[in-house]
């Protein structure tokens, strides 16, 4: 499910089944030297999460990405965000990011960290294979979450 009217309506009707929220945490860096790399990892994260959404449409809602820069990062109350989503009826709230600084407080937040792969130079066939490979890394994390409950 995407965060659009049609899907949200379906979520409201099927809360028993759609019980997982996937929140991308997107680091933006506008520094002259880092802006290109930052856009590349943003592109990767967006493509990947859209692909995850396609595979698990009926159980997972892909929340619009929460973006921050180095300076605004501290203002991002991710714990409260998780609480909000849980209050909305999502039993599982997972974060996904390419920014490795999130891995340090992994325990309480459940952040899936993936290294960004530059997709921009690849043709669509290779891109698809790469995304499928990355998806295989995420599936066990999702299913183990689902089997816990």
């Amino acid at each position: 499910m995407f965060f659009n009217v049609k899907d949200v309506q379906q979520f409201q009707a099927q809360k028993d089944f759609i019980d997982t929220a996937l929140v991308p945490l997107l680091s933006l860096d506008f520094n002259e030297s880092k802006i290109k790399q930052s856009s590349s990892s943003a592109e990767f994260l967006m493509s990947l999460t859209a692909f995850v959404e396609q595979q698990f449409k009926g159980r997972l809602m892909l929340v619009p990405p929460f973006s921050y820069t180095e300076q605004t990062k501290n203002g991002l109350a991710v714990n409260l965000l998780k609480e909000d989503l849980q209050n909305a009826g999502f039993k599982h709230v997972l974060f996904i990011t390419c920014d490795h600084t999130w891995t340090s407080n992994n325990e309480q937040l459940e952040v899936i960290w993936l290294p960004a792969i530059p997709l921009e130079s690849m043709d669509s066939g290779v891109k698809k294979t790469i995304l499928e490979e990355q998806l295989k890394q995420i599936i066990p994390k999702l299913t183990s979450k689902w089997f816990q409950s």
Partner: protein
Amino acid sequence: MSNNRVSRRQFLNYTLTGVGGFMAAGMLMPMVRFAIDPALQTKADGDFVQTSQKVADLTEEPVKVDFSYEQVDAWYTSEVTDTAWVYKSGDAVVALSPVCKHLGCTVNWNSDTEHPNQFFCACHGGRYEKTGKNVPGTPPLGPLDEYEVSEQDGFVMLGKKIANTRG
């Protein structure tokens, strides 16, 4: 010169009928064309999309076949990649849509070890038989959709989505 000579009157008659005929046709043709236009319009959704899957390589075992087409959403044109599960059933080629009829997840063939030779949806454990028929007692309420299939130069061509005809 032949014996039956054409008189001036005859010559003018012939030329006028000829030229008049062309003019009448020139006026009538567009009118007729406009009148029957709806019948001449090609239907875009009937188009078949070529895949890279050879018909000769297909077996009874469903394989994943990707195909892309362009989709226009307002001013935004994007290339959409879709997938189908394609297999041979006797001589016929069957292409099933991988979209689960429950809430739209993507189903996989043979991915659940407890129920081999079935399509399995990882989201809520929905299962479908090879024909696409939903297994009763699992969440899905209908069979998997099917794609229209044709063949060109030995490659599988996929058309529009239709309701399952096998389940």
